């Protein structure tokens, strides 16, 4: 047996919850330059806790860039592909920063904190590159302050059908009226002015809270969240479960489904790209040209293994005749849907659900089929008792 886990080195960054993770006997790994918990009690249990109850994640490794000033709306409109002019104060939006050729610098969540004040949540491994890109792209613009505020926050994600019931015990803010992808500020665990967002990366209902990053405060809030969720069977969850949860929900992960080699149309993220927003955002012209030439030649699709086998990141996708046609970007057993699933790039001729393909698994050809995504969709709020109060 050989184990492919990399051991965390001393040079890695640590979040304010590092010692808390060690105390919970988490297994730590290098993720994007951060020493992060990959699992605590067990990946499958953690995954199921989020789907059926509640789980809590340390997501402090995520970066945060703040754009302030009279030109901040013009700045985000130029920098990001979605239409920020539609955002109201207290609203968030999935978006992306593109290179001029229409490929990805990073995918982001944009928050409108107030008029002329925006917070962009970025990925951990791309932080330096992203900050540099923002400064380079917007540096010449007056009336704009760009600040890397990543180190100010410990970011804790509370996710699952019991997330609201858990967090509600720790805050006087009425959480029910906060709609999906909206946020507010309020007292949490006695801390004032905490950003409380109804966002997440699990496909489940849930919240992300932004608290001061010092170790004592971080550890205290973490412990209070665990205590509040105890009656719902809350589990601390690692990046392993975070990955399988987002994969079941078919959410993109930078470096896998999106990168500087893949454009918006290929990644199937056109619904977040507003070509007609009236601003010539970075990457727009290249994307327009791709459309003009008839669209992309390949696209991201969902795969479900038909025969016995697990398609994993980087495995080749073949036609049934054995011709290489694409690559899996993320693949794993899916603990809740209980299938072996994957996201993969395939030529347009194979991109419709029902298309039969094969995955090459260590020299063996194993059958798979293209399926509609997401693989998992949570029950509608109206039928979800956790959302009724």
């Amino acid at each position, binding site marked *: *047996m*050989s184990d*492919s886990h990399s051991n965390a080195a001393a040079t890695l960054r640590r979040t304010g919850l590092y010692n808390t993770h060690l105390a919970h006997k988490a297994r730590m790994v290098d993720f994007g330059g951060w020493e992060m918990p990959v699992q605590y009690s067990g*990946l499958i249990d953690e995954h199921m806790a989020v789907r059926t109850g509640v789980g809590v994640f340390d997501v402090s490794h995520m970066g945060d860039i703040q754009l302030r000033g009279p030109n901040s709306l013009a700045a985000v409109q130029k920098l990001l592909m979605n239409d920020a002019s539609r955002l109201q104060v207290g609203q968030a939006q999935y978006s992306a920063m593109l290179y001029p050729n229409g490929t990805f610098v990073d995918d982001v969540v944009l928050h409108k904190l107030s008029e002329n004040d925006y917070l962009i949540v970025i990925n951990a491994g791309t932080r330096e590159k992203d900050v540099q890109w923002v400064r380079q792209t917007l540096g010449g613009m007056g009336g704009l302050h760009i600040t890397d505020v990543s180190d100010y926050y410990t970011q804790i994600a509370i996710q699952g059908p019991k997330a609201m019931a858990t967090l509600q015990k720790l805050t006087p803010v009425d959480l029910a009226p906060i709609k999906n992808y909206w946020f507010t500020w309020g007292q949490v665990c006695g801390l004032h002015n905490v950003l409380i967002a109804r966002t997440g990366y699990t496909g489940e209902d849930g919240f992300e809270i932004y608290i001061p990053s010092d170790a004592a405060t971080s550890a205290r809030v973490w412990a209070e969240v665990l205590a509040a969720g105890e009656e719902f069977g809350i589990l601390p969850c690692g990046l392993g479960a975070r990955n399988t949860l987002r994969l079941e929900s078919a959410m993109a992960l930078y470096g896998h489904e999106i990168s500087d080699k893949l454009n918006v149309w290929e990644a199937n993220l056109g619904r977040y790209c507003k070509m007609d927003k009236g601003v010539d955002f970075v990457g727009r012209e290249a994307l327009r040209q791709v459309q003009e030439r008839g669209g992309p030649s390949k696209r991201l699709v969902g795969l479900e293994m038909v025969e016995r086998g697990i398609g994993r990141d980087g495995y080749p996708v073949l036609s049934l005749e054995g011709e290489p046609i694409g690559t899996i970007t993320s693949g*794993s057993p899916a603990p809740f849907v209980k299938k072996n699933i994957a996201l993969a790039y395939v030529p347009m001729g194979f991109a419709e659900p029902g298309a039969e393909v094969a995955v090459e698994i260590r020299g063996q050809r194993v059958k798979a089929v293209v399926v509609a995504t997401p693989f998992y969709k949570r029950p509608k709020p109206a039928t979800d008792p956790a959302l009724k109060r």
Partner: protein
Amino acid sequence: MSYPENYRYAKSHEWMLLEGDSATVGITDYAQESLGDIVFVELPKVGAEFEAGATFGSVESVKAVSDLYTPVGGTVTAVNSVLNDAPENLNKAANETWVIRLAAKGAPVEGLLSAAEYQKFVADESGH
């Protein structure tokens, strides 16, 4: 974690019980613990022949694939096909859950460890 005294242990984290020329091979408690939830076991066919130290199959957790190496060469006489449907048995009882049996031929791989030596080996490997 426990390591039976009558087993021999490979540094690649398989255990072997050698009785005459019959070898039973499984994965160690340390291996199942490191892998986490095991969801898939790839087994060889009965009758397949392997050299000592060769890859004879693999185990997969949700996150990772690990090859299995046989500590001794020979012909596979039985595979634990229960693992096709219940791979989690390896997590539940690694010492009692065999993976393959072989009619052993020739010398085992060099450097097989006793239970005490293996325990020390994994303590060093995991850094505590």
